[in-house]
């Protein structure tokens, strides 16, 4: 039941904590660091709601231990919009295309699309849609989510903040 000191950067801010080895990164982010935008659904990697960006890659926060995040740079959904409230292009696309219903699965979907479109050029629609297969929307609101993803793929440079 070892305890471990960790230092990491969350949404640009440095954090330090002492965590129990078995604490998952999703539980750490929600209950210790206060980032409740990390939605915890299935807690075993199936639903995708807790997806965050760790060192530039979209990963399941429930499938990492908090202690493994030592030294990483993490972005959660709270870290995407500009300080003045301007939405990230992914958030804007989902809003424009009605790509959410109850909103539970949304932060995970936003983070997957943000990680993939924040590169030098946006990937193909096929790549984005394939990545969306890693998310479950229990409202079954997939059509709007698909439209948003396709929109992000088509507009060159659309994903950049």
């Amino acid at each position, binding site marked *: *039941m*070892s305890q*471990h000191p960790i230092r990491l950067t969350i949404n640009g801010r440095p954090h330090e904590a002492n965590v*129990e*080895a*078995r*604490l*998952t990164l999703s*539980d750490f982010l929600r209950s210790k660091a206060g980032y409740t935008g990390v939605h915890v659904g299935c*807690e*075993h*990697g199936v639903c*995708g709601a807790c*997806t965050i960006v760790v060192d530039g*890659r*979209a*990963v*399941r926060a*429930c*499938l*990492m*231990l908090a*202690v*493994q995040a030592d030294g990483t740079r993490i972005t959660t959904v709270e870290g995407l919009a500009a300080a003045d409230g301007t939405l990230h292009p992914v958030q804007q696309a989902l809003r424009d295309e009605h790509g959410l219903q109850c909103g539970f699965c949304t932060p995970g979907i936003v983070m*997957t699309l943000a990680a*993939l479109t924040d590169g030098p050029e946006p990937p193909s629609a096929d790549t984005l849609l*394939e*990545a969306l*297969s*890693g998310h479950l929307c229990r409202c079954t609101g997939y059509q709007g989510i698909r439209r948003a993803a396709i929109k992000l793929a088509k507009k060159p440079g659309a994903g950049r903040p």
Partner: protein
Amino acid sequence: MKPAPFDYLAPETIEQACEHLAAAGGGATVLAGGQTLLPLLALRMSQPFVLVDINRIAALGGIIRVAGGTRIGPIVRQNEAIEDATLASRLPLVVRATRHVAHHQIRNRGTIGGSIALGEPAAELPATAVALGATLEVRSTRGTRRIPAEEFYFGPYATALEQDELLSAVHFPDWEPDTVSLFRELAQRPGDFALLGLSGALTLEERRITRAGIAWFGMGPTPMKARQLEAALVGQSIDALDPRALAELAIADTAPFDDHHASAEYRRTVGRHVFARTWREALDSRKVA
């Protein structure tokens, strides 16, 4: 917190990791990508005393060319492998198979070695390692062993890896440049475990098959090497073979089972079709070449 309590160690060298595994006397579990282990911990199906996290061991990463082949470090992420230029040119089958592993987000953490060491019978990478004749290097405080992938799998999640051993490298031998990849799988949804699938390679000289390595996944308790099919292919011209007879041979070395997804008979029937389509694809690819 859902997992049962455990201690956590994050060694920085292979030697330290092996010492931790030896000291734990079977109570330790290796944490690589964690994409299977963390669900098992959350469900308390796995309750190790110690987790040995190997993600900080630099010597376990990297994809490098070695004499006669390519060495993939076990902690190479599946998506890193998909994006790797060496694998794209030298081992396109590995890239193709890895694209079918789980979902994008899982592949960002999941590792090549984790999938190969776990021994899930329906997984793509163990069958691909068996098909291509990979050798698995395992380390412990007792020394180093090199195990052919074909001899590594004993049953579902049962492998030749002892409790104190760590998979330290996966060596894929070179296949000649004129090699065709064979790959197809059937899954209920994208990203699910396959109901069954086929992974393999054929080397051709003109239109004659000089080397064949083919294995099934989801068609038995382990990856199942299609030995009779391989024997029937090598030395033959690809135009002279009867696809129906080959399809029968293709499933001759399988041992599929009934489960709540599909019956063994269904798997055999679909297996013949999976082979037939893959074979046709291989022939078509040769027409253009």
